[in-house]
């Protein structure tokens, strides 16, 4: 056994099949709700999926306004602000999911990109910084760009490492970024940057809309960003790049032999993940309105990873759920402040023991052939196995085949 590689982060096809069999057998015994939901969802025709999706999105947009009792984080924490925090964590999780979930690269230093994004936004908008100032919304692409640059800088030397070696190196990188923010005077350490910029716009009374005490607009902004990122990530997942990532995740050597330029695609995953990290960092900086080095420690990095794995590694919807949950639990239990992290720790253990693949486990699928092929493989005749959707996915796969040759 070679300890440098270890088994893949997600069990191979074999184990998957076994666990799938077992899951379908015991679907009603435990956690059947989620699994059943996933299967029913896949069985729905496209139109109906869109219909339900729109309802879900509308509900998601209404979340901070509704302030559902019991779920609400009040009275300990302001609910719209909690929603904003949850959405930012969800975005982080979507980005990290590209690195960990798709490409199978264990990144424990993701907070570094988040920090880079935050500092970019802060240093380009805060009155505390002596540099050039640009409007806040422009800092979002700039933060993505800077984070991508750091992604390349870190990725090129380290992505030749595998598995847990990569984990400790990225963890070290995260720490280095945080400590540098402390040491370098221009980054102001714990003193930090105050009054970070925000998007323009004032309400009827002449107050700015995007205040650090008003979570709702920030939540809506972040949610919209998440939807855009999800659409892009979904396309990427079904593209050649996405297939290359899955090949790398499942067996890097095999992928290499089959002609997948693994190193290139690993750097791609890293860089794309980094850009989303930078984007979420910039949003976070704007929302809190204050940036200093205290947020970017190892614990935060570990929490990000927890978000991805909790939701279901490799499943972007799961990542959103996981990210929101990781932000939510401590905020919800602020009233019993002393217990909140204990509850969080116990919740992590319990979820992993009872749902080892996460709340919404990723399905191993032949993505290019879509649901039609999936249904054939699993031998199920879905309700919505309509000709339309089958024809569509076949056409897509043909196009992609053409693109490959």
């Amino acid at each position: 056994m070679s300890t440098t590689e270890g088994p893949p982060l997600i069990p191979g096809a074999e184990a998957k099949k076994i666990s799938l069999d077992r899951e379908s057998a015991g679907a009603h015994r435990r956690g059947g709700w989620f699994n059943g939901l996933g299967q029913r969802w896949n069985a729905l025709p496209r139109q109906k999926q869109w219909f339900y999706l729109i309802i879900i999105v509308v509900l998601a947009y209404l979340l901070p306004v509704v302030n559902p009792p019991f779920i609400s984080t009040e009275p300990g924490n302001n609910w719209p602000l909690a929603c904003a925090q949850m959405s930012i964590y969800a975005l982080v999780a979507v980005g990290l999911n590209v690195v960990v979930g798709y490409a199978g690269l264990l990144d424990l230093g993701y907070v570094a990109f988040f920090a880079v994004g935050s500092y970019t936004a802060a240093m380009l908008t805060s009155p505390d910084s002596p540099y050039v100032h640009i409007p806040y919304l422009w800092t979002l692409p700039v933060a993505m760009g800077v984070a991508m640059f750091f992604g390349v800088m870190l990725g090129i030397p380290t992505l030749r490492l595998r598995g847990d070696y990569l984990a400790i190196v990225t963890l070290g990188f995260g720490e280095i970024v945080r400590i540098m923010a402390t040491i370098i005077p221009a980054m102001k350490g714990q003193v930090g940057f105050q009054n970070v910029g925000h998007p323009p716009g004032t309400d009827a009374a002449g107050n700015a809309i995007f205040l650090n005490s008003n979570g709702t607009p920030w939540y809506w902004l972040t949610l919209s960003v998440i939807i855009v990122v999800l659409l892009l990530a979904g396309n990427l997942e079904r593209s050649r790049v996405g297939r290359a990532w899955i090949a790398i995740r499942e067996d890097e050597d095999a992928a290499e032999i089959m002609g997948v330029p693994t190193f290139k695609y690993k750097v791609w995953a890293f860089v794309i993940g980094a850009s989303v990290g930078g984007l979420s960092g910039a949003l976070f900086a704007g929302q809190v309105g204050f940036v200093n080095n205290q947020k970017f420690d190892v614990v935060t990095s570990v929490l990000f990873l927890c978000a991805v794995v909790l939701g279901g590694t490799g499943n972007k919807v799961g990542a959103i759920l996981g990210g929101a949950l990781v932000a939510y639990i401590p905020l919800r239990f602020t009233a019993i402040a002393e217990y909140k992290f204990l509850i969080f720790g116990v919740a992590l253990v319990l979820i992993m023991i009872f749902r080892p693949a996460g709340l919404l486990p990723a399905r191993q699928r032949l993505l290019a052939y879509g649901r039609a092929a999936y249904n054939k493989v699993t031998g199920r005749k879905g309700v919505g196995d309509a000709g339309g959707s089958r024809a569509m996915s076949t056409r897509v796969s043909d196009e992609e085949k053409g693109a490959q040759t």
Partner: protein
Amino acid sequence: MYRKKVSTTLAVAAALGLLLSSCANQPGTSGSGDTAGAGAGAANKVNIPALTKIDTPAGAVLPKGDGKGKCPATTTLAYAGAETGANAQLGVNIFNGIQLAINEHNAANPGCQVQFKKYDTEGDPNKATGPVTQVVSEPNIIGVVGLPFSGESKATGNIFEQKGLVHITPSATGVSLTTNGWTTFFRGLGNDGVQGPAAAKFLTGKLEAKKIYVVQDDSEYGIGLATSTSAGLSSALAGTEKVTTGQKDFSAVISKIINAKADAVFYAGYYAEGAPFDQQLVAKGFTGTFIGPDGVKDDQFIKQAGDASNNAYFTCPCIPGELIPTFETAYKKLANAEPGTYSIEGYDAATVLLSGIDAGKQTRPDLLAWVKSYDKDGLSKHYKWDSKGELQAPTVYGYKVDNGKIVPVGPIGE
């Protein structure tokens, strides 16, 4: 395998035995490790007598007022600040002080039962906006005591400002806090710009230090204080060094201090790092004076530094509440502990707000106006703020460690 484990233990025993041989008679020979007061650091210690009582202003305003207060049952005051986290102790000291003031008020005023709510920020600027927004969005809360730390105050001051909610910080001493144009921010004590020069004067004057090493942590508080103290020390400054929040090992900094032959060290930071720092400093043979600001002045410092703390002095813009007998007994009864640093500041700040409620100022704008024009004695000092929210006549006290306790040595820097 059992045998192997035993042999491990034996091996260690042998190793310890071999090397401890010279330690056994050690306590007797070097003189350290004796009873408190004769630690290694005591050699050069200038002895300043401890203060045993302080004068409280005769007409000090107390929370109980005249007993005729009338207010709706929903009237609420809040504390926002650390309840958990690494620096929670300071928060505990403060909200116990507030709780005491509110209890005394409610007991004496049957017609006005003020409620008290606490919001946890963990002392972290990144987490403070959520709880603070919650505070300002609850209409019943008309006044706040907090936030305790400069960083979180900085991150959230504008939220209070937007909603016109008055807040009095009992402990945040960052100088820049009053330069943001906030009209709702009031500081119940002197800032670092007052404390730093006072500390410098104390060191070169009463403590007769000639070569002083200034060590700062990476907090805004530590950096600001180190800067203002260094400026006050001028030629007596032997060098400066930086440490980090959460640092546990200070050997590199310490060897520099010892090589520089400094006779006093000023540590600008909090006790969490200050205590192990002093402990290691003395363990490495430093015999001079250790002096820390209000962030270090805490019983936790003595608990963690042990004997080494015998060389320690403190400066603090806080008043020794434990020397006010009525306050001390009442606090002890409530919290089952001696009043800590800033307990009395929390008590006094709450008193200012409570007296406003009793005087009929029961909306946010009224209470804000009340605090703005407040001009009375509190239990600890006179409270009257200038237009920026700074106290007009803050005092800085010196403290020292005596017999395992922190005792005041009187006002300094005057």
